[in-house]
């Protein structure tokens, strides 16, 4: 069944990772930044599952299980903080929140 070589999966993972990093750098809305972070985490997960499958080692899949849970917890906390900011300032645009000031 495995006629697709390992590198193809890794290429998808690489593409998703790079796109995610770019998204974090150029998007100005905090929620879209979170979506790009999820994209990055998914790319790492895909790489881990690929390696686990081609090595025959279940440790990679167990790791992905943990990472998914951590990502869920992080998303929950991140969105709670965004909601707290939105209540104070009525905006979630990173530029207006003065995030990158010196």
């Amino acid at each position: 069944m495995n006629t697709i070589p390992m590198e193809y999966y890794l290429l998808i993972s690489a593409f998703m990772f790079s796109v995610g990093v770019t998204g974090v750098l150029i998007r100005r809305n905090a929620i879209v930044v979170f979506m790009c972070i999820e994209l990055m985490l998914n790319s790492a997960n895909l790489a881990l599952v690929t390696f686990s499958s081609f090595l025959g080692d279940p440790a990679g899949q167990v790791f992905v299980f943990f990472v998914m849970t951590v990502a869920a917890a992080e998303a929950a906390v991140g969105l709670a903080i965004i909601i707290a900011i939105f209540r104070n300032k009525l905006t979630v645009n990173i530029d207006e929140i003065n995030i990158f000031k010196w």
Partner: protein
Amino acid sequence: MINEILNSITFIYPELAVSIFLLIIVLVDLVFHKDKKYIPYISLAGLVITGILVLNQIGITHFAFVPQLSAVKKYGMMTIDPFGSYFKLLVVVTSILIIFFTIASEEVIDLKERLGEFHALIYGMILGMLVMISASDLILIYLSLELLSLSSYVLAGFLKLRERSSEASLKYVIYGSVSSGLMLFGISIIYGLTGSTNLYVINSLIQGPQINLFTLSFSSILMFVGIGYKISAAPFHFWTPDVYEGAPISITAYLSVASKAAGFALLIRFIQTGFTSFISEDGYWTLIAVFDWQALLIAISILTMTLGNFSALWQDNLKRMLAYSSIAHAGYILLGIAVLSNQGLIAVLIYFFVYMLMNIGAFYVVMLISNKTGSENIDDYDGLGAKAPFLGVALAIFLISLTGLPPTAGFIAKLYLFIALIDANMIVVAIIALLNTVVSLYYYVRVLKHMYLTKSEREQENITPSIGSLVYLLVLLIPILFFGIYFTPIVEFARSCVSLLGI
């Protein structure tokens, strides 16, 4: 299998104690809605018990949680050794000091009903730090780092009504999540290269001939990004000033000492366990030739020191200035690691002990003054030498120790660092560090000038600290002055704790 797990539980008593007390705090918070004043004392009791359990562990060197189903049955997921126990003791002592800090801080007293959650989150941080310090498996490292980070994000933004607080929290979350995402990608590549997530197994496997060095370097650098964010190394330090300024001051003090200590312990363990192939007679490490780790560490530490010191020169907010100063100190500590020798490690251990005392002390005085005058701006410190004589003297001693002048313990810490540098023949780097210390003198002394030499514009009443605060400050001041003169006990203790569990 079950035997292995039962045996390993005896090695994680401190972490078990912290978890049990976390649950107790959550339950007490739930049961007693109105009366929250006992919660800090429960936290203190829990920390004292954890401290005693850590002290019991100091002599032990052992693996815990050895995976039975994998191919290699020798190395465990957690490593208990004197190095780890020293840092755990440091974290526990810092936590005890910070709980006393929170009892005195008005920002925390104003929390009223949310005090239980505040302490529960602090316990979450402690659990994350304790596991991070002794973790030797990449999965456990990632998970404990995330536990520490998640609790910190929430604690940094805990004062919801203050705008700076929630901004700080958002910036922290975004930076932290991106860094941990990068670190996870690095971990996945290392796993793919070696087929294992245990640092010891990785060490033996990357010495094999068929490992692609570029891939290994790339993934190690990605992992270093994740750890570097935690220790505020440049260029990953951009979150530090805003978060330290916006967070409640007790959390700022906690983050600047304990979180950094755990991050550095992780970095040292990562480098020594994962990448060291051989330790020579006089204690110099030989790293597996992946890429020039030493040059990278030296470059980053010089960048960190310089950025921290030069940015602090312009700061008027005292919390922000202390934030940049803690970045600079992270740079000095990184130099101690960059030497790649046991001597440098001893210097790092001594430096952390002294840094804990002086940083918490400086933040405590800033907190007391901010309780009274409601401001952290340096112009409001004018004439404080007359209005609050004891606080003025205390802050002066802490600032002199932070600069590294005799006869304070800060001088001893820097001295050992420079001795380690010179012994490793890194003279140029030592000179750069010395110049940085001279630059830092300016902004520390500037506070003293405002306190003693500038007359204040407005009329202020005298600030008399309470008995509790006096005792607290004396507990921090006396070791700084005592160990500045008679420093052999710390040096001997650090020397005995340097050994990590070998390969």
